[in-house]
């Protein structure tokens, strides 16, 4: 297991149900999304064609790419519909004193 480190990326209040927001840790582009009260983090660039998933459409526990309709399960990153052909990388999330932290490889 690679080493990871925690990075503050957002205020908890800015991550709302039904939409995704984009954050960066260095060069890493990450999307945050709240489902059933819990915040989840996953890579923000669609593995199919470089679209930003945070511009896409969130419905329940699914996010749809804004361009070619690939869909992913938010809580697991699992790919649900083509044209993407792999799951999303996900990142551990913790919330401390209303601040959101994600764990990324150091």
């Amino acid at each position: 297991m690679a080493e990871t480190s925690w990075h503050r990326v957002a205020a908890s209040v800015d991550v709302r149900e039904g939409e995704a927001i984009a954050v960066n840790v260095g060069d890493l582009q990450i999307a945050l999304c709240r489902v059933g009260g819990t915040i989840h983090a996953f890579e923000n660039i669609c593995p199919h064609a470089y679209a930003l998933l945070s511009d896409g459409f969130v419905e329940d526990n699914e996010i749809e790419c804004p361009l070619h309709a690939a869909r992913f399960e938010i809580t697991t990153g699992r790919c649900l519909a083509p044209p993407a052909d792999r799951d999303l990388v996900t990142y551990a999330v913790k919330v401390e004193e209303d601040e959101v932290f994600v764990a990324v490889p150091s």
Partner: protein
Amino acid sequence: MFLRNFWYVAATDQEVQAKPFGRTIMNEPIVFFRMPDGTPVALEDRCPHRRLPLSMGKLVGDALQCGYHGLRFDKTGQCVRVPGQDLIPPSARVKSYPVVERYKWLWIWMGDPALADPDKITDFHWFDDPNWGAKSAYLHVEANWQLVVDNLLDLTHLAFVHETTIGNMALVEHAAVKVQRGPNNVLVTRWTIDQPAPPTFVKVGGFTTNVDRWQIIDYAPPAFLRLDVGATPTGTGAPEGKRVGGISMRNLNAITPETETTTHYFWGQAHDFEPGNRQMTERVFEQIQAAFYEDVAIFQAQQRMISLDPDSPTVDINADSGGIQARRIVDRLYAEEQAALAQRAAAE
């Protein structure tokens, strides 16, 4: 690809007169004229005798007379006179189309006449509303209708195509964009906060400070785009819904396919400031018209490239999301119409 079961704008009310005129819509030749009592009529523009366009004929009383051998047709398309003979063959008739005059346009129904409900006409009340000044115009475009829809759903092009009028780089680099979609609707909301006003806004709105600018694009299929656009001095509360001290306009677009590669483009601009001032209406219109001519040049150049090789690859970028959602709606509606037609053909 055309969607049939929709109302389309066929003509401006001024274009429809007693003298017939012909216009092709979705590959169908149609003749428009006005009866002596003012009622507008739309018929197939092709005499069933020797296929001359009936728009080359003239109105005689209540009937349209062909300019070749004088066959006459009533407003339902039925032949009512064949010169030199008493007998009128039952097949001597042309197709007629439901039409409705609304918002200073003539609307036509291109699908199953049984479904032609005027309540389904898309709202363009700004052209009739005394609270707005408005002017509309017609452009003929040698390009597929969906290229026009794409254009209006991705306004980042303003910075590059219209930098002398309604665009500036702030629209690309500093806009917060949100795309929302319903089963038959796409809404693209763009906010550009605390940025310089583009040249046209300075001219008609007199802005001297940075502005908060909104562009809210409402798409309804097949090809109606109603843009709520405007700006207020920055920090005065427009993003929270308080629009004071600025300008608000509607850019209104009704796009009607002529053929797969040509389009009738009806558009207009409405403004809420000095609504009764005709000079202001002209000034606003001229500014926006300059931008629209720039767009038409783009569409036609795109179409030339597409026609050379329709399968040449394209790439999508983030700003395409609205246009892609709209195309997806059109694709779904087209599949539904085709399925219904196939079902009906199977039942017959």
